């Protein structure tokens, strides 16, 4: 099932630590994730570490679920990085600043794999 949420993106410590190592597994683990309320995980039927497809008007991307009690049930948090930005687009009225927070998105559980950074970037080249 699909569930509507607000997508929030932002810095995290781990994303920052591995920011100069974008091809590493550590970076993948730090940035290709989605922090999500455990109740919401249950609702969409995804387990800790399972695949979540984040879908917006722009595109969709698969990241891994990480349970987080401090995240409200109406939102998900994806660290800033290639995965988060893949589903974001420029929108109106923003004076040069795209919307990186509070973007309308849908999420669903998926068996698809999270793309590696270089695989994700290849999608831009088509």
């Amino acid at each position, binding site marked *: 099932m699909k569930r509507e949420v607000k997508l929030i993106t932002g810095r995290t410590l781990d994303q920052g630590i591995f920011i100069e190592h974008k091809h590493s597994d550590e970076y993948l683990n730090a940035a290709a994730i989605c922090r999500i309320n455990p109740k919401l995980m249950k609702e969409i039927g995804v387990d800790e570490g399972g695949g979540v497809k984040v879908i917006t008007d722009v595109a969709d991307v698969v990241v891994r679920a990480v349970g987080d009690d401090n995240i409200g049930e109406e939102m998900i948090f994806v660290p800033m990085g290639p995965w988060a930005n893949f589903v974001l687009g420029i929108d*109106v*009225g*923003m*004076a040069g600043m795209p919307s990186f927070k509070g973007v309308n998105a849908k999420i669903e559980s998926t068996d698809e794999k999270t793309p590696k950074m270089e695989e994700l970037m290849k999608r831009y080249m088509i």
Partner: protein
Amino acid sequence: MQNITLKSKYDGRISVEAEIITPDNFSGKDAKEIGEMDLFMGNKTVKLKDIFEVSVEGSSENPEDTEIIIKGNTDRIKRIGEGMTSGKIVIEGDVDMHCGAMMRGGKIIVKGDADSWAGREMSGGELLIEGDAKNYIGGAYRGETYGMTGGKITVKGNVGAYLGEKMKDGEIVVEGDADMISGMEMLGGKIIIKGDAIMPGGEMKGGTVIVMGEVTDRMPTFKMDGMEIIEGIEFNRYTGDLSVRRAKGVLYMKG
């Protein structure tokens, strides 16, 4: 009467800056002279004739009697009609940013959509957009005190965010819906939105905003001070924005 027709041959994506296209600059000139005028495309200077086919009928030394019709693909032509004082421009398709910016008189009709900053800092004349328009319509330049100070803008479709930003005088009528904060930091003049609006009147200090449709996300800093009937419809009258010193803005909303 002088009728000038420009037919666009341009389908590039780098916008062309064409502030030269005004009745003031064209009146009394023949097709050749107009074709030799400079436009700017990226870091290149190009001749007008490289972008448009030019034809001229009749002649007039007076911009008032000069009409420019622009046909073809113009969605990447910026700044048409900037600073014009009189005469008329008709754009048959879509137009890029800053159309009619700083215009002082005359009339511009855009039959398609207009991009952001149409009518920016305009002080007179009339701008009619038959399609949709984007952001900052009738607004200001970054950091300036005033946006539009006179004239009239009509948009038949929807508008984007920050309609009439820092507007000081004049009138804007939108027949469709308006995105975020119409009349933002408005100081005077009048905005009528026939459709819906989001957070209208943010930080307005003066002037009037009338929203005939639904309002979502109301600003919390307006005070209701009565009811009024405008054109047969009942409106609540609010004053604000109370988060601004000496604010005397008037916002009419249903309910």
